[in-house]
């Protein structure tokens, strides 16, 4: 079992390898994913295991390669595009938002676009403002895209396999600080699939509902353990897919705990946490709240370079801890 404690990079690679073995129409394209193994080492040896034709190194042309993936997806293939940093989806936004997302609907259902776009997001590497964004909100705001934000290797594998199966375009956002760390749980062997659009209850408590995705799940988990010792028990929910967003476990939990803390790394405006808050506000669970909803998000600034600045820009464990404790202690 211990050899199944994979890193997220390994888990993702395993998922892609399985999908490529299962289906000849699956292929990967992206910059430096071949002999280089990917900027973050995710594709690794797939280039050698499969072939340069199925692990296709491309020039630096994000718009072109996403567009080519759209065309290939319309023509019987199942491309997985890797964009080296999610920041550079900006280059490809027309093909992502105006083409891939809309084709199935806009063309009356005659065609569909089974495409996965994998890309690392988030800060923490000292690469500054053009390499550290969390842009999930751009995608979540575009009807026709599914948006996945895995928080651990086992989920990443199962969600990626489902994303590759999905007949629709899926944006798969991987926090780069998660690539090299193993998860808390072993990664199951074989072609395990986790359906998109199903929230996961990571742990259950009675005092507070805490919702987070991606790397924030790790930070939040740390807080749940720490506060448990103080007698504060927390339900931690990881939606895993932010679009579509599965609210039911969140609403159920809010009814029990009466308190809600939502956390994300990106700036608040447009953030998925706002969607959670709005849905709670509209729901009948709203009446169960005994405290104002609290949110933690990245500062409304571009991500700075120097480590002390970069840390200040996004919620840290201590911030979550303080917010969680206060919510519970101050509202009884």
């Amino acid at each position, binding site marked *: 079992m211990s050899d199944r404690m994979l890193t997220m990079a390994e888990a993702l690679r395993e998922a892609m390898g399985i999908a490529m073995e299962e289906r000849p129409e699956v292929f990967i394209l992206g910059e430096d994913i071949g002999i280089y193994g990917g900027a973050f080492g995710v594709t690794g040896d797939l280039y050698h295991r499969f072939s340069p034709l199925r692990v296709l190194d491309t020039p630096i042309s994000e718009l072109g*390669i996403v567009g080519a993936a759209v065309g290939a997806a319309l023509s019987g293939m199942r491309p997985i595009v890797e964009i080296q940093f999610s920041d550079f989806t900006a280059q490809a936004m027309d093909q992502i938002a105006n083409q891939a997302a809309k084709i199935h609907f*806009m063309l009356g259902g005659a065609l569909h676009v089974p495409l996965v776009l994998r890309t690392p997001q988030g800060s923490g590497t000292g690469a500054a403002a053009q390499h550290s964004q969390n842009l999930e909100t751009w995608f979540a705001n575009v009807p026709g895209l599914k948006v996945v934000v895995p928080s651990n290797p086992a989920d990443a594998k199962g969600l990626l396999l489902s994303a590759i199966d999905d007949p629709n375009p899926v944006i798969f956002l991987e926090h780069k600080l998660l690539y090299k760390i193993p998860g808390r749980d072993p990664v199951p062997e074989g072609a395990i699939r986790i359906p998109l659009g199903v929230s996961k209850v990571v742990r259950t408590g009675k005092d507070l509902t805490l919702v987070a995705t991606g790397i924030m799940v790790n930070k939040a988990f740390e807080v749940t353990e720490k506060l448990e010792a103080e007698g504060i028990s927390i339900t931690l929910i990881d939606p895993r897919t932010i679009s579509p967003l599965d609210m039911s476990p969140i609403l159920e939990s809010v009814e029990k705990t009466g308190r809600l803390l939502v956390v994300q790394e990106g700036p608040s405006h447009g953030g998925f946490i706002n969607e959670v808050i709005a849905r709670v506000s509209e729901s009948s669970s709203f009446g169960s709240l005994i405290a104002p909803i609290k949110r933690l998000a990245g500062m409304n600034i571009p991500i700075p370079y120097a480590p002390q600045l970069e840390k200040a820009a996004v919620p840290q464990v201590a911030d979550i801890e303080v917010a969680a404790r206060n919510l519970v202690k101050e509202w009884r």
Partner: protein
Amino acid sequence: MVAQSLLMGHPLSSPDHARHALLYMYRIRKFEEAVEDLFGRGMMHGTMHLSIGQEAGPTGMCLALRLEDQITSTHRGHGHCIAKGADLTRMMAELLGKKIGYCGGRGGSMHIADAETGNLGANGVVGGGIPIAVGAALASKMQHKGTVAVSFFGDGAMNEGAFHEAANLAAIWKLPVILFCENNHYGMSSSTEKAFAIDRLADRGLGYGIPGVTVDGNDVVAVYEASEAAVARARNGEGPTLIEAITYRWKGHSRSDKNLYRSKEEIDEWKDLDPIPKFIHRVLEANLLRQDEIDAIQKQATDQIIEAVNNAAAAESAEPSGLLEAVFKAVSA
């Protein structure tokens, strides 16, 4: 299926081929005239981009294609769609927002696609279809399908990054794709003289290692011949070709165009170069069809369009129910 009646080959190679080329040019012309009329009478929604005057390009190119070959098209896409063999009623129904329309009323003129005839879609985004065609060609190569993909686009689209990135990918991967530029001298109000610092747009190919040919885009024979050569190259694994077809749009860019950026004289000069009489002249010269046969072909096209309009008008309107479910294709269990 309408599509299978398509007759490929040189438009002057037989009376049937000539008939086909002429019929399709007429279909496009009459379709566009009907659209203009419906708009004028307030019966159509949205906007329209007519390709009257440009019929030889799509017709000549598509004569060199097989049913399973693919195209991507543009906002000015009725001609491409018809030339590739689409059903006229379903096209017209789409423009009228009907359920039986190609997009079920969800797309309109700028988004008609037809999987059966290999039309991956018109596109509201200038240049948007070019990388998609390259991807279709990539799929063809990966799957050894032997098919060719053609991207139609305008002169204006050539200045979009999408053209550039797509062209380079096509070149380095030697993909079976044809970049078919309909140079009608304007991108909306922007003339090629102002938008380019080169005379021949086909020279753009030089920067990618893609052969570029310029043809008279109002001569369906010349277009066919250039297209046929490009298709042969593509099927042979020799890679992409850039074709620049010189033509002219008679009508305004869209509904709201006041034509301030060009002169009436210029428009009239180009009307004298009408691709349809030009082809008829060649056909008569070659003794392939008689004038009465030609007249019959024109009437046939007119009748087909009238029928399409009538059928479309009579069809059921698209309804809002089910829109939300239509966003995603259902995940099969």
